């Protein structure tokens, strides 16, 4: 199966989208990440949910997870509200830390898609045509659905 057949409609956000809105989109639609496009609608990067968490959780808690336990509910909520004043751009790692884009062309095979996911460590791969327009995206779960189809019960 080719990437164009695997691709699904996928929410796209821009660099200036509010970070909280982006996080809610991921949550509402149960997506592991979002495709981020630049001002011309060309794919800029993929924002994985783990990156949102990395931004939201202070580094000192990432260094010492035991500290997360000492927060009360209100304290936890305060940490989450950090997102409301930020944009998607601010959530992204600095340019030099970022890999190249997890993007495949529409003719890519499912194995190529899997290879890009592994190489980029991304749960989402964007399918982009020759005009750099996003046709959709392939998630890890969609790929697994194709690679390991359910066996009908006997």
């Amino acid at each position, binding site marked *: 199966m080719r990437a164009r057949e695997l691709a699904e409609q996928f929410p796209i956000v821009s660099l200036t989208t509010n970070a909280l809105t982006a996080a809610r989109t991921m949550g509402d639609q149960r997506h592991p990440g979002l495709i981020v496009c630049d001002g011309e609608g060309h794919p800029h990067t993929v924002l994985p949910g783990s990156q949102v968490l990395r931004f939201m959780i*202070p580094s000192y808690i990432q260094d010492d997870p*035991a500290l997360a336990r000492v927060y009360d509910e209100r304290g936890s909520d305060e940490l989450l509200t950090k997102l409301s004043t930020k944009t998607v751009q601010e959530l992204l790692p600095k340019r030099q830390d970022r890999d190249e884009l997890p993007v495949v062309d529409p003719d890519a095979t499912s194995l190529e898609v899997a290879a890009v996911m592994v190489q980029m460590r991304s749960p989402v791969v964007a399918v982009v045509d020759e005009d750099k327009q996003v046709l959709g995206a392939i998630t890890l779960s969609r790929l697994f659905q194709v690679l390991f189809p359910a066996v009908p019960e006997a």
Partner: protein
Amino acid sequence: MTTVLVVIVFTTAYILIATERIHRVAAALGGAAMMVVLGVVNAEVAFFSERTGVDWNVIFLLLGMMIMVGVLRQTGVFEFVAIWAAKRAKGRPFAIMVMLIVLTAVASALLDNVTTVLLVAPVTLLLCDRIDAPPVPFLIAEVMASNIGGTATLIGDPPNIIIAAKSGLSFNDFVLNLAPIVVVLLLVFIVMARVMFRSAFTFHPEKVEALMALDEREAITDRKLLIKSMVVLLAVMIGFVSHSALHLEPSMVALLGAGALVAISKLDVSDCIADVEWSTLVFFMGLFIMVGALIEVGVIGTISKAATEAVDGKYFLASTVLLFASGALSGIVDNIPYVATMAPLVADLVSSGGGDAGANAAWWSLALGADLGGNATAVGASANVVVLGIAARNGHPISFWQFTKYGLIVAAVTISIAWGYVALRYFMFA
């Protein structure tokens, strides 16, 4: 000719370690390998000679303590104590800083400095976040308190461990000679911190509630493990205090403690040894072999003889030079290779004094200078570098000069006070 080559190899390795042009472990091991190639070092010289070989007491004392700390840190006790103390301070920034200074200094006297700051820095950032205080002054104060507190005991700072191994001084000798002045230095440092970081102490009453809402008991991840760890740590401390009477080297006490803790903790062994800094242990081994080569070819003996003749019984002058020179050098280069090199020289100097209290003061001058000098610059001690890294990762970068402008003052004041202490205790009122 061989002697000249040994000196060249040693100096080159030392420069590489000091300038960090290559990793310090590679420099030390490379230097040690060259000593073998030059035919100065063989297995007997490197591994089995008390005079020239790897000091296994130092290696195994460090290993034992690292294992115990590796288990202890999994209990969450440091986080508990820090949050508990901050809540007792009722959110007042200076009171919290004093609590953290005391906690860090006491912990550093009993544990390795780097481990201590690794444990205290994250909870400090949390506390500063809660009370809306700038974390940089708190982090700088903590690492300086760690370097001061670590001076107090035999196990507090690696240079002290090397000095103990080379001098035969006991745990109690260190406590009796260094702990009193460290207490004074800490009090002085607290006053200095009040002045140096005065702009950081703005009290936000509205933030107190956020601090008091933290539940420090939740930081304790494993109560049974905490109790077991405390029992073993207490036994180890008793072992250190009484090691002379028990005829047990401190390294044996630490290894017994580590073994007991691993056995009763029921943790996976790989978790227990996860925090062991193998690279540091290997670095020590390489250093010992390089210094052993200098001893073997007679360089240390020649310098010792010249130094002893130059001192000519003027031990006060010798202690003064040793204290200030060690302080200055430790601010620039790693104090571990410095002390490893100086220890055999000081041992000869002290033995030439024939048990004179003034001659023995050379050991305390070396320890005070090397340990306190680590505060002088941002790269003066490993703990400084670690805290700078944590601060940067959390969005609060501390520049070299931002640290050093405070460090130079603190090092100058503490070393000067330490000099007064040495002068009074070992010379004027000896």
